[in-house]
């Protein structure tokens, strides 16, 4: 806990610095349009008034932090949770497909890793293609996946979740291959001298040895999964979800909405990563991990 106190001051002061830069940038970036507006309206405001106006445009190039904060606050706390305009509702929509995709992705990643570790043929043929799969621009394929899936009658949560799966299985597969291969040679030899069966070696040695790797890669995977869910929402008609909010914001140039949707995305991302981190720590403690 005292490490937390160590970090508090630096983190808050850096965040404060970011805020200051943000305000300055907001003024600078919003100024040209404001000047145009004033020129067309024939107004000549003084400097203070002008700066004030740059920070209160309805559709600014860069919204000022307080505009985002107000919008975020209103859409989070003042709306009915079931309302389509509530960020909580939209975050929940995104979160649910994120979690489903994350679960699929983790499972798929583990299965692939187990296959690679145990089947020599897979080990030698699969890995380059797994890497290549991640270089495919998913946003390009996402609409087609969603259309194809809709064609076979799969709609709703699952298509989005599958895009999350596609993005999140990779870190898990790579991490788990490393993890399942992480037992030292002597540990494996030990099992061999006991004439342990492959499944005994797997459950009693490889699995526990891979747990730290699993949680590290799950942290990356859950973040990737969120990106997948957001990307997956873009082509589904922007009905609901953080991606839909981003899109609707972009569609109507509602930059403040975009930014507060981004903030909502960040909060969800931070929470997800934190939850995985805590789960990892609990499991580590239960397995006799040494406190750092």
């Amino acid at each position, binding site marked *: 806990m005292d490490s937390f106190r*160590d*970090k508090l*001051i*630096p*983190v808050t*002061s*850096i*965040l404060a610095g970011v805020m200051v830069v943000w305000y300055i940038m907001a003024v600078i*970036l919003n100024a040209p349009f404001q000047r145009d507006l004033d020129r067309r309206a024939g107004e000549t405001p003084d400097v203070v008034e002008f700066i004030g106006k740059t920070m209160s445009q309805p559709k600014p*190039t*860069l919204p000022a932090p307080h505009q985002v904060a107000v919008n975020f606050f209103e859409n989070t706390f003042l709306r009915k949770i079931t309302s389509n305009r509530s960020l909580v509702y939209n975050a929940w929509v995104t979160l649910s497909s994120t979690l489903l995709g994350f679960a699929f992705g983790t499972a798929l990643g583990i299965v692939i890793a187990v296959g690679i570790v145990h089947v*020599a*043929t897979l*080990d*030698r*043929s*699969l*890995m*380059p*293609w797994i*890497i*290549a*799969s*991640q*270089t*495919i*621009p*998913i*946003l*390009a*394929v996402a*609409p*087609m996946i969603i*259309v*194809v899936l809709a*064609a076979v009658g799969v709609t709703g949560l699952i298509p989005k979740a599958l895009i999350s799966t596609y993005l999140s299985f990779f870190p898990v597969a790579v991490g788990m291959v490393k993890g399942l291969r992480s037992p030292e040679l002597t540990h494996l030899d030990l099992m061999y001298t006991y004439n342990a069966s492959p499944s005994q070696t797997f459950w009693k040695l490889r699995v526990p040895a891979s747990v730290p790797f699993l949680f590290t890669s799950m*942290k990356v995977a*859950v*973040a990737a999964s*969120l*990106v997948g869910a*957001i*990307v997956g929402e873009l082509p589904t008609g922007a009905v609901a979800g*953080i991606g839909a909010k*981003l899109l609707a914001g*972009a569609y109507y140039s509602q*930059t403040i909405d*975009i930014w507060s*949707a*981004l903030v909502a*995305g*960040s909060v969800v*991302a*931070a929470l*997800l*990563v934190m939850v995985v981190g805590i789960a990892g720590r609990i499991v580590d403690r239960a397995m006799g991990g040494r406190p750092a």
Partner: protein
Amino acid sequence: MSDLLSLSSIAPRSWQGFAALALLAGAFLLWPLVDVTPGYDVTTGVLIFFLLLLAIQFDHFPPVARAIFLFIGAHGAAWLLLAGITGNEGSARASFYLMLAAAWLLAWRCVTVLSALRPTSRWAATALRLIIPAIFGAWILIIWEAVTRGAGIPFILLPPPSAIGVRIANSLPVLAADVRQTIFKAVIFGYVVGSGAGFLAAIAADRVPFLRRGLLPIGNMVSALPIIGVAPIMVMWFGFDWQSKAAVVIIMTFFPMLVNTVAGLAASGHMERDLMRTYASSYWQTLFKLRLPAAAPFIFNALKINSTLALIGAIVAEFFGTPVVGMGFRISTEVGRMNIDMVWAEIAVAALAGSVFYGVVALFERAVTFWHPSVRGG
């Protein structure tokens, strides 16, 4: 030859062989392969059966010969099957898929045999390392081709790979222009600047503990964010041309590099750092002689992650506004024009470029971190 003919050796030697034989029997019973006439002529059908049976039989030979015959049998049969279905789209019957599955099983058997080979010469080992994944990739394409043609999937949903290949061959100038716009301008610039800035920020954070304590938690969080969301904003700020794409790439690559480099700088052992202390070595001496080399595996990890992120970031950013060239532009417009084969051509080029990019970084990594156990070991 007599060995080949003797009855005792008719039985296949692997489960794949058995399964393939069973599938062949099934295909024979459910003949013909397609619903339409003329469909496959008799010679082609016999030839396919012959090739597959040959492959099953030659499983008794020494490994290298076995692998060669399995390879020829499985792929020759697949080739004939695909050649026959072209022009008969959408008319495949169950027997067609059974034959295909038999060929696939034999190709699997071939890969299994190849995987078990332990060639002594370095040259052969390298060739094997390439051939095995190549067969795997070829079968992804073969099955894709067979299913899209066999089931007659509409062209604008999913074109067969052969059509994509033709499209690539016919559109080289367009593809080249897109690659130039997206990769050589936006990706490379953004990748270099983003990774470089992340690296320098990491050094600064390392030098100033206050920064490190403040920046790292933030960096850790930001690198988990859906950065893609900033793409429209960057287009708004930096205009339509490649600069805004580069800006997205910079943001996407900055934090992985920052986080990894900081972790890497902490990776050198206590004892190694104590050693430097006993030499009264300065901060920069310790940095260059100990901590950066020790951090190299982490830095390369970030470079690898970034190599795929950069490409995806640039292409996604092009969805939000571009001049009329670029891979992302092409993908989104050609979908609208129903030229799905062109879309897949761009995707294939992107995947190829991404893999090459990744491979180059991986090669550099091997050369620079030759000393690291993970490289030494294999």
